[in-house]
């Protein structure tokens, strides 16, 4: 009875919070209501829905031995405490995605994005993570590709492999673009990021030769050096020689990133990759926890309206109407397909009891969703005028604060040129205009919240560059590791075509694989940097479509497994989110390819540029006819890639339907789980 009253209270609080968010139009709402609405949604869905899935749908059974117990070797398969695995899993799934998507989506107001983040995570994202973790744990911790091959047929495994590689390349390029946007013409930021390379090398050598394996020690040393780099970065930026040296334009930064990505993924991991990974992982967890505490202390007002007029598709940050583009702009935080790879990676090999999967799989994703909500708060505490100045492309704003302020005022948001100059000065940048991509907006938002707590603007520039460093650092770590992963995927695929070309340790294979990987994502980044609409407008939807398609594939696999387990009557658990994801990605994909509006459609934009080129006119920002041709070609490639993602999703859907029909006809249960080993009664606790 007591618990019933408690849960009723949670429901009442949640409803009240939502009422505050939706009904108080016009006036600023306190961020507390957003946090309360989110937390009550998480509590209710975790307590009831995840319990239902765990007990009725999956029938998790602690008497079954987990792979960690059956194959315990103390190295890879290790039964580990539930909360320790939770921490590990959360750190593995939470990256830059939940910090970027919600910030871009804030152009439609905070409410549409928030509702999708919450509903999406409860019914789609967390279910997907939980589902994949479950089926992988029941199959000795197999990877997504292997399971797709096992349950759906060998050629589906190859399709999943190619799809994953394509999504990976797009993710890397979208993330690298975020870094370029944040660091372009920003000597302070560029210096701090560049400084992490020698710091990491020092840490790597220290850990290898001087004090092997002293992680705590070396992480503290690295952290102190990094903070020093931020503090002295301001002086470096003002230095007559080093200032201009670290002032790089977009294309220069892109080239630097490509070279760096190549070198980092060819070098042995202990030298550069591992130490940077340590720094970025600890920094990431620290910032997430710190920011959550900061928001709770500061309880800032949300200055962004709950809904803006840009839900009609005319938004400056990304084009396209609320349906379907909101649902692909916010992928991570609501539903992220890439988690299917994480949940079928290390985590299933650490699970101690089957029932722990509920906390780790479902609960871990709720944690990531909370990060997305915090990012939404960071974007919404800014004045809408400042937000649009930072996120709209130069094509709409012009390049001076005067033109920017005029453009933003014409959209109905008030901002003065002086205010824009002042903010740039406060955070120690030359300009904050057109820095789309999430990181700078997040950094300013975080700096505002922290400044609010200490009530002093003196440290604002420090906090801004701290946030930039934090985000750029873990994006770059993801880029290094991702390039390495791409290289092996490329070699794998080559091995499918020509057996013998597979994963080899030969130097030539390594160099070729790495070159293919970096040139693939580098090409897209370069295209994004030179894009008339700022790049995010074309790359982020492409990433969203790819990522949601991957989620759809994982949920299809889940649906097939449920039917094979003779649990077809519960298949709606995966079918409903899967259908929604497919409908949104297919609609978005179709519009991105064929929309006659050149703000949205790749082909329409390509046509616009090639037709203008045929008449000899040059459209901004292209400067020559040759560049015009390149813009047209880039957009055609984007269209083809979108079509490819759609094709992969459709092929898999067909395979899944065939597998379901086959499973329905068979009276036996046909899921290929590893044979059960029961726990001996004596050790069952």
């Amino acid at each position, binding site marked *: 009875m007591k618990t019933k009253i408690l849960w009723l209270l949670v429901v009442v609080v949640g409803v009240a919070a939502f009422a505050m968010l939706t009904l108080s139009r016009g006036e600023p709402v306190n961020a507390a209501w957003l946090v309360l609405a989110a937390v009550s949604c998480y509590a209710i869905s975790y307590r009831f829905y995840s319990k239902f899935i765990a007990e009725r749908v999956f029938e998790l059974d602690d008497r079954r031995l987990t792979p960690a117990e059956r194959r*315990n070797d103390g190295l890879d398969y*290790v039964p580990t*405490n539930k909360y320790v695995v939770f921490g590990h899993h959360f750190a593995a799934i939470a990256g830059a995605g939940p910090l970027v998507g919600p910030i871009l989506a804030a152009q439609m107001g905070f409410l549409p994005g928030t509702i999708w983040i919450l509903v999406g995570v409860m019914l789609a994202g967390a279910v997907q993570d939980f589902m994949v973790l479950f089926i992988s744990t029941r199959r000795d911790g197999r990877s997504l590709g292997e399971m797709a091959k096992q349950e759906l047929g060998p050629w589906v495994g190859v399709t999943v492999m190619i799809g994953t590689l394509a999504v990976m390349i797009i993710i890397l390029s979208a993330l690298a673009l975020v870094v370029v946007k944040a660091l372009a013409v920003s000597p302070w930021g560029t210096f701090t990021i560049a400084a992490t390379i020698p710091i990491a090398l020092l840490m790597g050598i220290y850990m290898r030769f001087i004090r092997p394996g002293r992680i705590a020690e070396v992480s503290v040393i690295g952290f102190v050096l990094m903070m020093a780099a931020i503090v002295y970065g301001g002086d470096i930026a003002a230095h007559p020689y080093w200032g201009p040296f670290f002032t790089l334009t977009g294309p220069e930064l892109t080239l630097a990133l490509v070279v760096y990505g190549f070198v980092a993924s060819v070098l042995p991991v202990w030298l550069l990759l591992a130490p940077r990974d340590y720094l970025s992982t600890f920094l990431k967890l620290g910032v997430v926890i710190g920011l959550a505490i900061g928001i709770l202390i500061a309880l800032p007002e949300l200055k962004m309206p709950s809904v803006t007029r840009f839900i009609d598709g005319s938004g400056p940050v990304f084009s396209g109407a609320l349906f379907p583009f909101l649902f692909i702009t916010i992928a991570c935080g609501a539903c992220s397909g*890439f988690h299917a790879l994480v949940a079928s990676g290390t985590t299933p090999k650490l699970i101690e009891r089957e029932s722990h999967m509920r906390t780790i799989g479902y609960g871990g994703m709720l944690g990531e969703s909370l990060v997305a909500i915090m990012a939404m708060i960071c974007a919404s505490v800014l004045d809408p005028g400042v937000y649009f100045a930072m996120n709209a492309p130069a094509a709409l704003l012009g390049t001076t604060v005067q033109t920017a302020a005029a453009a933003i005022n014409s959209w109905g948001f008030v901002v003065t040129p002086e205010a824009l100059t002042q903010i740039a000065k406060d955070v120690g940048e030359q300009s904050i205009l057109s820095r789309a991509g999430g990181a700078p907006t997040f950094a300013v938002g975080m700096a505002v919240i922290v400044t609010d707590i200490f009530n002093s603007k003196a440290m604002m520039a420090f906090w801004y560059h701290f946030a930039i460093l934090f985000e750029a650092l873990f994006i770059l770590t993801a880029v290094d*590791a991702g390039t390495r992963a791409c290289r092996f995927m490329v070699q794998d695929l080559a091995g499918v075509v020509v057996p013998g070309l597979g994963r080899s340790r030969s130097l030539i294979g390594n160099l070729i694989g790495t070159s293919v990987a970096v040139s693939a994502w580098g090409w897209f980044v370069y295209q994004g940097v030179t894009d008339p609409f700022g790049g995010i407008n074309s790359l982020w939807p492409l990433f969203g479509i790819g990522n949601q398609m991957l989620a759809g594939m994982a949920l299809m696999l889940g649906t097939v497994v449920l039917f094979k387990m003779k649990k077809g009557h519960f298949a709606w658990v995966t079918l409903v989110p899967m259908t929604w994801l497919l409908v949104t990605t297919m609609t978005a994909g179709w519009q991105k390819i064929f929309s006659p509006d050149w703000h949205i459609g790749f082909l329409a934009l390509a046509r616009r540029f090639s037709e203008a080129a045929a008449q000899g006119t040059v459209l901004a920002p292209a400067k020559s006819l040759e560049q015009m041709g390149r813009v047209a070609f880039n957009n055609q490639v984007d269209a083809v890639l979108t079509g490819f993602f759609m094709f992969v999703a459709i092929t898999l859907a067909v395979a899944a339907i065939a597998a379901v029909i086959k499973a329905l006809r068979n009276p036996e249960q046909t899921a290929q789980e590893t044979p059960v080993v029961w726990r001996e009664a004596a050790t069952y606790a």
Partner: protein
Amino acid sequence: MLDLSFLGRGDPALVPAAAPDLNGAYARYLAGVQAQGPGAVAMSATEFERYSLGTSWLTGVREVAKRVVQTCRLVIGIHDYEYYLDHMRSRHPQAIPLTREAFYRYCLEARYPSAERIGGRCPC
């Protein structure tokens, strides 16, 4: 690598360490329970320790500290060497376990994409 031995070795569930009987407190407790009559059931030594003031509090803090350190190491892919040693000693007593350094290198290699595995962390 941080030396965790001062925090106590291994998972208590797997390596049932004999609870230290401070000043014979448990013996006195047992005698007290038996004095109540033949039907009385005494709790086990471990459980007694959990219930007794002072020791249980420290054990709890120690346990939490250990978990926090273990989490911090696992997020960067370094497994628990103490657990591995216990595992090797109890299950494969004839085999020579990896040294601390070799164990650390194994974990390091396993975390990043390699010819054996693509690895699993979300780039986004």
